[in-house]
């Protein structure tokens, strides 16, 4: 049974229809965290975040507190919030920007205060038309309320936040590509080194980039203390986390649950969470953390939802998206579609990614649609190996950013877990699930 007694940290207002309004936000403790933060020294606020052991919620899972403290030596110029959520089957930030924009805004102000930054940007996915409206409205309200702008709550701290719309590019979720988008350019990731945002970010100046969910945790952490947050979860994975559950489950959705104390089985089968597989079918496999992550089989259902626990088994919690395949789902088709996505979204700078993704996609397509050959399997693995030598996890990188090494995950998983099914496609000249 799932452990569900942890407090709701970022989904506390989920039951209110008007959770996005300033009125509701203020009635439910809104902007108290900011008031408290402003009464503290900036480094004390950063200290609480450090004590909370909050891991970044964007995908890489780097400790947010450490990201900040690494930077405190030199002054930071800009804070940029990454709301370009586009990892397939990830929809937690969508929830946060539409349903609780004030919580995000308050988190950003707190972070800006801790980092002593006077200009912040919230980069939101262009497809979030309603999210953009809600966040801009929240910013307008916050200026009006005195929580933003000149001399916030009569303190000696001023801040301006600009919401920046993206325009449809998965790659802009990568922080250096996002910065290019914010500079008004094509979203080409930058080479690291030297372009680590912390050193050479927006306009070449030191920049902190944090995810929407990471920011949304800050009001609670400041109000309740970093230690209270760190007491939740286990190991390196502190606190609760949003999991976006999708695929063939009865109750797909965004769930905030305690990390480590719950397992994939809890998330997928608990009646209060996923509620089990559609039509009570058997589970075939699942993706533990976004389509960039290698897949797991049913044997790993009892693995705790923790950063290190999942990494030890050769995958990642990534963006917090869990996709379930049941016994009637075709894994060849699934892996083909994921590769098609990467092929479409590759920015085209690096040859292994640009050419490799299309080549793999075409080979997968012909297997799924009846033109496959058995030697295609070795060809596919060889192509994957060319993009990410050794096919290890974490993957080796031959490209500027991590989109490239994310391509092999699904194909390699599908072939190694379900080689028989590939053979069946080839031998029967098409998809047996059609």
């Amino acid at each position, binding site marked *: 049974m799932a452990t569900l007694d942890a407090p709701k940290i970022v989904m506390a207002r989920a039951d209110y229809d008007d959770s996005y309004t300033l009125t509701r936000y203020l009635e439910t403790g809104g902007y108290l965290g900011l008031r408290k933060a402003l009464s503290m020294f*900036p480094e004390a606020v950063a200290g609480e975040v450090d004590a909370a052991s909050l891991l970044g919620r964007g995908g890489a899972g780097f400790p947010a507190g450490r990201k900040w403290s690494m930077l405190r030596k030199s002054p930071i110029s800009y804070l940029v919030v990454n709301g370009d959520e586009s990892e397939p*089957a990830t929809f937690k930030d969508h929830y946060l920007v539409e349903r609780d924009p004030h919580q995000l805004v308050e988190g950003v102000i707190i972070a800006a205060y801790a980092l002593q930054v006077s200009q912040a940007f919230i980069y939101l996915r*262009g497809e979030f*038309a309603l999210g953009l*409206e809600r966040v801009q409205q929240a910013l307008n309200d916050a200026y009006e309320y005195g929580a933003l702008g000149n001399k916030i709550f009569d303190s000696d701290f001023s801040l301006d936040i600009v919401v920046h*719309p993206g325009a449809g590019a998965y790659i802009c979720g990568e922080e250096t590509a996002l910065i290019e988008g914010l500079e*008004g350019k094509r979203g080409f990731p930058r080479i690291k080194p030297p372009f680590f945002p912390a050193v050479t970010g927006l306009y070449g100046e030191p920049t902190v980039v944090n995810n929407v969910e990471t920011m949304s945790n800050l009001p609670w952490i400041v109000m309740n203390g970093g230690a209270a947050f760190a007491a939740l979860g286990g190991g390196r994975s502190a606190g609760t986390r949003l999991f976006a559950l999708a695929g063939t489950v009865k109750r797909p959705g965004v769930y905030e649950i305690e990390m480590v104390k719950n397992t994939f089985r809890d998330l997928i089968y608990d009646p209060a969470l996923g509620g089990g597989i559609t039509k009570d079918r058997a589970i075939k496999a699942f993706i533990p953390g976004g389509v960039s992550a290698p897949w797991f089989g049913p044997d790993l259902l009892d693995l705790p939802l923790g950063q290190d626990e999942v990494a030890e088994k050769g995958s990642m919690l990534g963006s917090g998206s869990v996709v379930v395949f049941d016994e009637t789902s075709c894994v060849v088709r699934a892996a083909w579609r994921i590769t098609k996505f990467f092929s479409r979204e590759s920015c085209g700078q690096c040859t292994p990614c640009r050419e490799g993704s299309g080549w793999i996609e075409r080979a997968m397509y012909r297997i799924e649609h009846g033109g496959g050959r058995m030697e295609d399997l070795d060809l596919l693995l060889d192509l994957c190996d060319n993009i990410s030598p050794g096919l290890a996890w974490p993957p080796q990188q031959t490209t500027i950013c991590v989109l490239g090494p994310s391509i092999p995950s699904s194909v390699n998983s599908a072939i190694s877990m379900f080689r028989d099914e590939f053979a069946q496609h080839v031998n029967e000249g098409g998809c047996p699930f059609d």
Partner: protein
Amino acid sequence: MSHLRNDLRQRAEELVALYPRKRSAMLPLLHLAQEQDGWLTNEGIAEVAELTDTTPADVRGTASFYEMFHLEPVGKYMVSVCTNIACLLQGGEEMLEHASTSLGCPVGSTSDDGLFTLEEAECLADCNIAPCIQVNHRYVRTTTPETFDALVAELRDGKRDHDIPAHGTLIRVRRSGGLRASKSDVATERADAKAARAKRDEENK
């Protein structure tokens, strides 16, 4: 003469002023130009170039990178049907096929009456209501062929204009406030805070 309507021209200038560098306003300005014309016309691109201190070639080169910017005319309603992994498992491909028949246009093209453009979308981040469909980037949450057809009928009759405006993601995104502190005030603030911090660090040693 500005190509953008007066109100949009004013908003464009306000947007440029929000950023430390003009070029940063590129994506929001392209959204605005598209809001007026439905797609990025030569005139719209030229005006964005003028506003951002760049060239039309540079603007076009940037716009062509982003899926949401249209370098040729599109229908009044952009219908995006997701077929990515979560939607694939819930009938996204079948829905795309149905939409194509229902709207009377192949995927990637515009219907003869100029009302609809159909595109196969990548994940739109609303995977719990799959298959996911957006019209002009508003979630419509029609997951069956029947509800989809009902929506199309409403769109044809102009009954959804209030919640699905024609073109323009930013059409209702209006900024009403802004930082009123001058840059030098902010610089003083930061310098004071930095000095205070140094003093605290000294005392803590």
